[in-house]
Structures are given as C-alpha cells and as structure tokens.
C-alpha cells in the first residue's frame, strides 16, 4: 500500500503542518488523521521534537474513531511513559475503555480524576458521554444540566444539550440552549439558523415570526446560506397562509416569500450556468417552489 507521502508527494513537514491545521480547526476526519499521523509517527517520530506528544494524542483519538485499537494502545503507552501522572493521559485511557464499551472501568478512571481535581471539566464531560453512549438520554440530560449549572460558560456543552433536547423533542429547552450560544457567538450564522429551525418546528404564529426573523438574520450574516434562504421562504409562506393573520402581515409575508423565491431562482441559475441541463433544472426549481407553497386548508 502506498504511503501518504508517496501518493501526494509531500514531505514530513507538510504532513505535520496539515495535522496542526486539523487540530486548530477541530476537524474530525479520523481516517485521514490516522493515515497521515501513523506514517508521521513511525517514519519521522524523532524529527518532530516536542510536537510528537500532541500528535500522539490527536492520532490516538482518531484511531479510536476508526476502531484501530492497536494504534491507540501504542500512542497511549508512549504518552503514559512520558507523562505518568497526567490527568489528560488518564482521560485518554478512559476514552479507550469507552471505545471498547468497558464503561464501568472507564467511569472508575474518571471518578479518580475528579477526586483529585474537582474542577476538571474533561472528565465530567466524558462521564456524560458514557451515559449518552449507553442510551440513557434522560440521565445524560440531567447530568449535563448539573454540569452547566457549575460551568455556565462551556459552549460545547450548551450545544450538546441543545442536540439532546432536540432528540427528545423538547424544543423549548433546546431553544434556550441555542439562545445562550447565539449570545456568546453573535456573528455565527449557523446558530441563528439552527435556532430558527427549532422555532419553526415548535410552530405557532409567534414562533413562526421569530423563525422568519432569525432565518433573515442568518442570511444577513452569511448571504450564501441556502438552508436559511429556504427556511425564510417556508416560514414566510407559512405565515402568509395562516388564517389568523391580518391583511398587512399577509401582504408583507407574501412579499418576503416572493423575494426569497427570486433569490433561490437566481442561485440555481448561477449554479447551472454553462451546463446544458440548466433550463430543465430551472423548471424543476420552479415546480419545487410551487409545491412547497402552503395552501390554506
């Protein structure tokens, strides 16, 4: 099997830089990390200097994702040799046990860490993910709530909680979590869009209006968010079709829906330019928009 460096004709420095970029961007492309990282460690381990430890950690977590227990054990042993008393390494041992579904042993590791250092957030979060993996969603939600009472600033946790609530169809509470995220990251269009979707799912005139506003906000933050554009179209047409609205609101929403439909058409035209099938795909878009029209029943 050809090695990564042969396939792409890159040197070890580029491989190391690529791993660093993935680390910084928090990418979860585990197979690629395993391919690049394994080769980097085995062939160029000595040249890496102190970087090698963080690469071990990165590769180990990716190996757990790909079920490569052999690689995970190798990395873990190297880290244990270098940092014998580290909480961070203990957490990695716990993660390996989780990957092997030995949840009780993993829990013991995390309890030990927490005994030593009650402020350690990583161990608490791992315990919650064990509950999630075992399917005990209600307990996971409860533990996560307790965790968030102490560490209100943990955005990853808020997002996880909103996901859990969405799975449980508790949209009101999911909206609360997303509001926290929107406040801490006001320029992130994805949170606005997700919030708008939750509000749309909740239904009811007020929520639909809110969702339309937040879809518009997501579009304002990022003009290319097609999902938000479709959401805007849907929520506006939904409001316009509702029997309870006044004439002015109806008119406004029809205007919004019309504008959104225009933009969608423009986008598809732009996407298909230069291709032969453009006319057919434009017609398909028109039909799709018509079919999505919410008619009063």
């Amino acid at each position, binding site marked *: 099997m050809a090695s990564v460096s042969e396939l792409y004709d890159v040197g070890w420095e580029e491989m190391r830089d*690529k791993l660093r970029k993935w680390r910084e961007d928090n990418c979860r492309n585990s197979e690629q990390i395993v391919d690049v990282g394994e080769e980097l460690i085995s062939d160029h381990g000595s040249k890496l200097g102190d970087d090698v430890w963080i690469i071990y950690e990165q590769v180990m977590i990716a190996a757990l994702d790909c079920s490569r227990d052999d690689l995970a054990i190798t990395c873990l042993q190297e880290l244990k040799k270098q940092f014998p008393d580290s909480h961070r390494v203990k957490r990695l041992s716990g993660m390996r046990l989780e990957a092997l579904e030995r949840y009780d042993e993993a829990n013991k590791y995390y309890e030990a860490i927490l005994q030593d250092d009650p402020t350690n957030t990583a161990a608490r979060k791992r315990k919650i993910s064990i509950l999630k993996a075992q399917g005990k969603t209600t307990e996971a939600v409860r533990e996560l709530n307790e965790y968030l009472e102490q560490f209100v600033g943990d955005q990853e946790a808020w997002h996880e909680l909103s996901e859990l609530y969405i799975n449980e169809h508790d949209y009101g509470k999911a909206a609360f979590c997303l509001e926290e995220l929107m406040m801490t990251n*006001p320029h992130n269009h994805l949170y606005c869009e997700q919030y708008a979707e939750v509000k749309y799912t909740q239904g009811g005139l007020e929520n639909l209006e809110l969702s339309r506003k*937040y879809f518009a906000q997501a579009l304002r933050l990022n003009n*290319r968010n097609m999902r938000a554009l479709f959401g805007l179209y849907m929520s506006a047409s939904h409001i316009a079709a509702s029997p309870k609205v006044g004439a002015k609101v109806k008119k406004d929403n029809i205007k919004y829906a019309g504008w959104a439909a225009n933009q969608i058409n423009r986008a598809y035209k732009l996407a298909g330019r230069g291709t032969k099938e453009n006319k057919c795909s434009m017609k398909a878009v028109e039909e799709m928009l018509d079919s999505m029209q919410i008619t009063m029943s």
Partner: protein
Amino acid sequence: MAEPELLLDSNIRLWVVLPIVFITFLVGVIRHYVSILLQSDKKLTLEQVSDSQVLIRSRILRENGKYIPKQSFLMRKFYFNNQDDGFFKKSKRKVVPPSPMTDPSMLTDMMKGNVTNVLPMILIGGWINWTFSGFVTTKVPFPLTLRFKPMLQQGIELLSLDASWVSSASWYFLNVFGLRSMYSLILGQDNGADQSRIMQEQMSGAAMAMPADTNKAFKAEWEALELTDHQWALESVEEDLMGRELDFDGMFSKELPTGIF
C-alpha cells in the same frame, strides 16, 4: 550662561556604560527564570471557577442580549436580578481576606517576590555605586535642577557641575526601567523581570484582595444588569436584507478539493 562642554574619556563608554547595560540585562533575565522556578501553583476551587463563569455570562447577557428575543432576555434578567431569589441577590460568598498572617502561602509569595525583585536591585545598585564611583558617566539630554544633584551624582563632590551629568548609579537605575521593553521582546509579555510592573502590582495588590471581590463583583453586575434594556437587533432585519440582492459571489466555483493535500 553657556556651559563649557565636558568631554568624557571614551574609556568610560567602553568600560562603564556598556558593562552596566549588560549586567542589568543579564540580572533581569536571571530574575525571570528564578521567579519561574520559585512560582507556586495556584489551585482554584470549583466555586471560584463557577463564579467567574457566571460573571462572564452576565456580562455577555448585557452586551449581546440584543440578539435574542425580548422574552428570553427578560427571563434571564429576572433570573439574575429578581428581588428575592435572583442569583446576584441570593449568593453570598464567604469572604476570607488573604492577609499575610492568616494565609501562609500568601506570606511565602510576598517573601519570594521581595527576594527576587527588591533584593538584587539593592545589592547590585550598591555594588555598582561602589565600583564605578568618583566619575561622571553620562549626561541626561534634558536640564535638571540643582535639587537632583545629591541624588544623581552620588560619588562626585563638585558643586559647580551641572545636574545633567549623572553618576553610574543613576545610569543603572535608568537601565532597570529602560530595559523593560527589551525584556518583553526577548522573554515574552508576562516576564518576571519586569520590575515596574511588579511594583505596580504590589501597590494595587495590597489594596484589593481576590475573594472579597466576588461579592462586590456580583453587586456591580447586578447594578449594571438593572440598567440594561433590550434593544432587539432584529427589528428590521427583513427590510435590511431585502434592500439588495444576495451576494452569491464565488459560491459555485469549479474547483473542488481532492484528497488530503
């Protein structure tokens, strides 16, 4: 009255000015590393971490509350500021002022601070004064009054000498403060050799103690939050958005990334 210009021996420059610069700089670097070695870890309690995060959340609510719907903002403001059981009203933290008597670790910290900073300065200042005494080292570029003479011209007994001519001890002190920017360049921002910053910290640190801050911080946040109003940023978002066409530039480029590199 025009001053006759004094011409200093160029040996002074070679054997006095430069060595003092080097000595000061090296002593500063050594101080930095010693302070790192002697540093004790500070362990934070769960409550302190939690409180600091709550304060951050409240501040974010004040600053970015306009991005969430009015109802949600009011709900959170109520949670924090409610008369009877709002978080800021209800939580009282135990206040233990860290005076040197009660808290032994504070005492050792102070001692270490003194040893690493003040002591070397005094010692070296005295040594330089003793070694390089009896002659004028340099001239400060601005005129000084006669009152500065006894301070700046330590070993020189000349009544008529202009106060701008200073001795080596004052050149040493000039260096101590002047090399601060060099230290930041070489040792990074938070370095232990930064004399004046440490003195500032000592002065302000004596006035405010950390845990007592929490109660006061809560009170300050409560007041600030009471004053905040909700100005929804999304009032006219649709009108703003539809004022112009959406910008799809570069959305459908022909290039797709292939493979890892």
